[in-house]
């Protein structure tokens, strides 16, 4: 079965009680005076196999929430997200690693939680270290790692788990140039083999090296960015995500052919 992501009328709600604490829907029914804020609402679309998509948009547009919902970290409050294929996600700044455990121990934990058999993961730990390029730091507690080292560790585990769908959230901000090329190579190979890559961030130039198509997420929904592959790299990435390749006049809407988005 080919990998795919289908999003229909997706809505993710955040409930906040009167003491300004985030709360769960069940608890918000008990606690009075709770307010609901929609992180995402009425989001629809589909991503087909063999696509690498950059997810851009202003801060607070819901890029991380959307990635987390596709990853299954969050579940929709409205609508649904259907995915087909094994998901590898690097969505948190600490890459899901527990600070008091060593890189090796974290790799085993993350690998098994990602669905790999324990024996395989144990046998592959040195290989994962090689992929991460952590060398002797692999046996040090993760609390001594930089953000980039944590991202390398998380990515190496994902790489070893051979995902069909790769989700990356602002990973470029954490890793160095050499490892960025490594991530790009892996993403290109995954795309070529029919997998899906979805990467969110604000560095459009870096995202353009990783993804040949882009989607802009804002209050009105998800919109394809025509001409991303041709012109986005030349466009200065503004923090609000307002400037797109479309604004630079490059490319056409046909570039977004693998994206089935409502227009």
């Amino acid at each position, binding site marked *: 079965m080919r990998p795919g992501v289908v999003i229909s009328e997706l809505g993710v709600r*955040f409930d906040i009680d009167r003491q300004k604490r*985030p*709360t*769960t*829907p*069940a*608890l918000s029914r008990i606690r009075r005076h709770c307010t609901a804020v929609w992180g995402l609402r009425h989001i629809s679309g589909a991503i087909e196999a063999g696509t690498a998509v950059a997810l851009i948009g202003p801060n607070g547009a819901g890029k991380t929430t959307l990635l*987390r919902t596709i*990853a*299954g*970290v*969050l*579940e929709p409050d409205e609508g649904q997200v259907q995915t087909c294929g094994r*998901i590898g*996600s*690097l*969505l*948190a700044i*600490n*890459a*899901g*690693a*527990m*600070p*008091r*455990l060593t890189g090796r*121990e*974290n790799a*085993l*934990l*993350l690998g*098994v*939680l*990602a*669905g790999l*058999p*324990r024996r395989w993961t144990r046998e592959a730990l040195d290989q994962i270290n090689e992929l991460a390029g952590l060398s002797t730091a692999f046996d040090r507690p993760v609390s001594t790692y930089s953000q980039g080292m944590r991202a390398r560790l*998380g990515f190496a585990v994902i790489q070893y788990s051979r995902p069909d769908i790769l989700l990356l959230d602002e990973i470029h901000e954490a890793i160095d140039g050499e490892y960025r090329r490594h991530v790009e190579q892996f993403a290109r190979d995954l795309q070529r083999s029919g997998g899906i890559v979805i990467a969110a961030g604000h560095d459009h130039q870096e995202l353009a090296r990783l993804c040949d198509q882009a989607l802009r997420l804002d209050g009105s929904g998800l919109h394809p960015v025509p001409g991303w592959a041709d012109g986005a790299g030349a466009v200065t990435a503004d923090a609000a995500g307002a400037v797109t390749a479309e604004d630079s006049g490059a490319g056409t809407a046909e570039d977004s052919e693998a994206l089935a988005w409502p227009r």
Partner: protein
Amino acid sequence: MSSSSVVLGDERERTARLGAWFEQLLVLTSSDLRSRYGRGRWQLVKWLIDPFALVGVYLLMDTFIFYRRPYAAGLSLACSVIPFQMITMTVQSSLDAVRQRGAILGNMRFRRVLLPFSTALTEACGFAGSLTLLALMIAVYRVAPSAQILWLPVGLVLTLLLGITVAYPVTLIGVWAPDMRGLMMSAVRAAYYLAPGFVTLSTIHGRTQTWVKVNPLTSLFELLRHAVLYRSAPPLWELLVPAGWIIALLLLFVPIYNREQRHFAKLLE
């Protein structure tokens, strides 16, 4: 494809899923163990300090404050302190379980229903270690083991199961009301004093005894005492009360936990 091969395929898939479930529980527990208690031989010492210290303090109180000299006081106390340690440590760890795993919860999907289970299993390692206290007390008071010692594993299993089922509501409380952690720990300590921990059940009379029997800790304490101290078979209620609590907690809170865990990532950071 014939129907028998479909059934065989389903069976294999179920076995594989169960295997993955078990392996994930194992890695969650072992990582929790390292994260909470560190590594090396001092781990065992850390687990033993608490129950040994507690029995020591209660023995001193018994002797010098209450001037009581009950039969095999240290062994009787050990029978209450060991299950109590399991429950109290599980409660303490469960209150923090989601925050502790926040990094993974925010990054990837996994069987989050295993979190409270693995927390209880982590504390079960300390629980197993504290059994040396029981062995030591049996030796100190020279209590010859009888056939009733076979009730000991039953008591230990019930304690473990109660710890696992208690972990689900407590994990939810840790998420719903993190500022109630202190109150929760006080409630657990109160549960010890509202059970025959310091004294045996036979010294409590009348309606108080009836009420005390409702406390699941009462059954766990008395079950262990029946196995190693009273050397008689426990009455049926000592098995039924904790079993009832375990079933009730399981039926009530595991579904609520399952519904709530979908939103844990929203509460992090």
